[in-house]
């Protein structure tokens, strides 16, 4: 896995003022708009788990394949760096290909915030996750802001699974929440069904059901 990754320039850190936060000086901040080839997605979830535990779960990057779609493996390469491998579609229709990139954590505030960016490889992405108590403190509000250029990462999502890459970020947070709250990710893949008709493939793709649901893990039993 020690391929040298030099195909693309490093992603820039997220600009100041465009963080995952949604409130600045009492005013609501809308998410950044897509421009200059950059795509942004901001999504949030209300999770009934302590911020500290959620932070630990997110920070344990090697467990990301358990809840992030299409991520094959994540290997730590240093205190704040890691190497990511994602499944992608190959020109050869019968088998999947992979794309790979390195990532580094730029800001690491335990129980509160993690910001990262890719530093080389097939993907040009940067992101941030913020964990904060919801108003009144009855749960944790988790906000993710992710930015990518329409490079191989984004097109991998799109071509392989029919997921718009923005939707993939939303789905990943949904999986994260389900896993954190229940110890599993809801799934139907593998259940029985009768004969699918002529247009089943089209419907499956239309319903965005082709992505393999990540395996999840059992945090409550461990």
């Amino acid at each position: 896995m020690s391929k040298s990754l030099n195909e693309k320039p490093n992603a820039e850190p997220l600009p100041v003022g465009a963080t995952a936060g949604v409130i600045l000086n009492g005013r609501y901040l809308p998410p950044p708009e897509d421009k200059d080839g950059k795509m942004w997605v901001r999504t949030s979830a209300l999770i009934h788990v302590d911020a500290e535990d959620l932070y630990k779960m997110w920070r344990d990057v090697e467990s990301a394949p358990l809840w992030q779609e299409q991520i094959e493996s994540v290997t730590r390469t240093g205190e704040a760096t890691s190497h990511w491998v994602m499944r992608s579609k190959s020109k050869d229709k019968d088998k999947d290909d992979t794309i790979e990139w390195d990532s580094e954590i730029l800001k690491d505030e335990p129980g509160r915030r993690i910001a990262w960016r890719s530093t080389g490889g097939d993907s040009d992405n940067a992101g941030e996750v913020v964990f904060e108590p919801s108003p009144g403190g009855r749960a944790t509000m988790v906000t993710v802001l992710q930015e990518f250029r329409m490079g191989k990462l984004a097109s991998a999502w799109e071509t392989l699974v029919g997921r718009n890459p923005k939707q993939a970020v939303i789905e990943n947070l949904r999986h994260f929440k389900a896993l954190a709250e229940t110890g599993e990710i809801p799934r139907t893949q593998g259940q029985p069904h009768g004969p699918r008709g002529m247009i089943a493939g089209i419907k499956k793709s239309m319903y965005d059901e082709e992505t393999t649901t990540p395996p999840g893990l059992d945090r409550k039993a461990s």
Partner: protein
Amino acid sequence: MKALCWMGSSKVEVHNVSDPTILNPHDAILKITRTAICGSDLHLYDGFIPTMEEGDILGHEFMGIVEEIGKNVTNLQRGDRVVVPFTIACGNCEFCKKKIWSACDNTNPNAHLMEAAYGYSGSGLFGYSHMMGGYAGGQAQYVRVPFANIGPLKIESDLPDEKVLFLSDIFPTGYMAAENAQIQENDTVAVWGCGPVGQFAIASAFMLGAARVIAIDRLPERLEMARSIGAITVDYSEEDVSVLTALKDLTGGIGPDSCIDAVGLEAHSAQLQGIYDKVKTAIMLETDRPSVLRQAIQSVRKGGTVSIPGVYGGLLDKVPFGAAFGKGITMKMGQTNMHNYMKPLLERIEKGQIDPSYIISHRITLDQAPEMYKVWRDKKQSVTKIVIDPWAA
């Protein structure tokens, strides 16, 4: 195993499919002992609910014996007899904690589909379209039950299946409809639709203190059944009957304190507005036929409550909102929060306060189910409720 599959509009077939397996740590596999066809299955049969796929296994009212459990199911054992709620809830999210179980955030693997169509997602449901989760249903010999630590209700007494089966949906649904109707002691309650949910809404309205229940339908066997539990009936199909006038006549001119719409999106109406809705839905300017909802809003007394257990799926036309505002009515509705009602209603059955099996008219095998879907849809053979024994030959 054998399973009843949706194969297109007005087309259901029994197929041999693979047995379900444990896919998640909180799953259980049930061997189904009894299952039923629900009125809302007819909305699927008629093609009114989008995101169905050929081969989908139908059925959301079922009970059975636990055959296998996932490694984190701690409350059930192989051999337990359970009734399963049709809504799937995780027990840990914001909504489950608020006991709005049917709004659970963590059980619909296809939440994105529902968000795209409606802007939100509810919980996953068994056998009720991909948008609602795409879970295989229980009109089959076996079923996988996710989040089995939260939903299934153990039946520890020797009550026969038929007396407890309807705890899976229609009895709690009828009961919640009556609860949503905010009935006060000695109120008058009108119930549109005397199918199974309407029947249980009538029975529950009496349990909650209603002094008079007025039941509205057109099918003689249903009206007869409603009268048998104490309701006064109005047959809207009789030529000289106006429902609005009848409800005034029966309430000293003020209208019922509460109105329950146990019909929903496929209401039939003999009047001009019925034809209007049929045409508009046919040309897709409207998705639902809300003639019952219109009547309920028009007839409820000032400051009264309209409760809606009947299913609606989309856009409604010509709903008299001015009357709703002017009278200051309350409207309550939604999928049943099953988990709140199953245990208390089981207790009522155990105490002999109600025997829900009184609504059953047909007992059939799985192989007879495709024919019986059609019979029920066409309102033939005096069908009130069909129960399936999936192992009977």
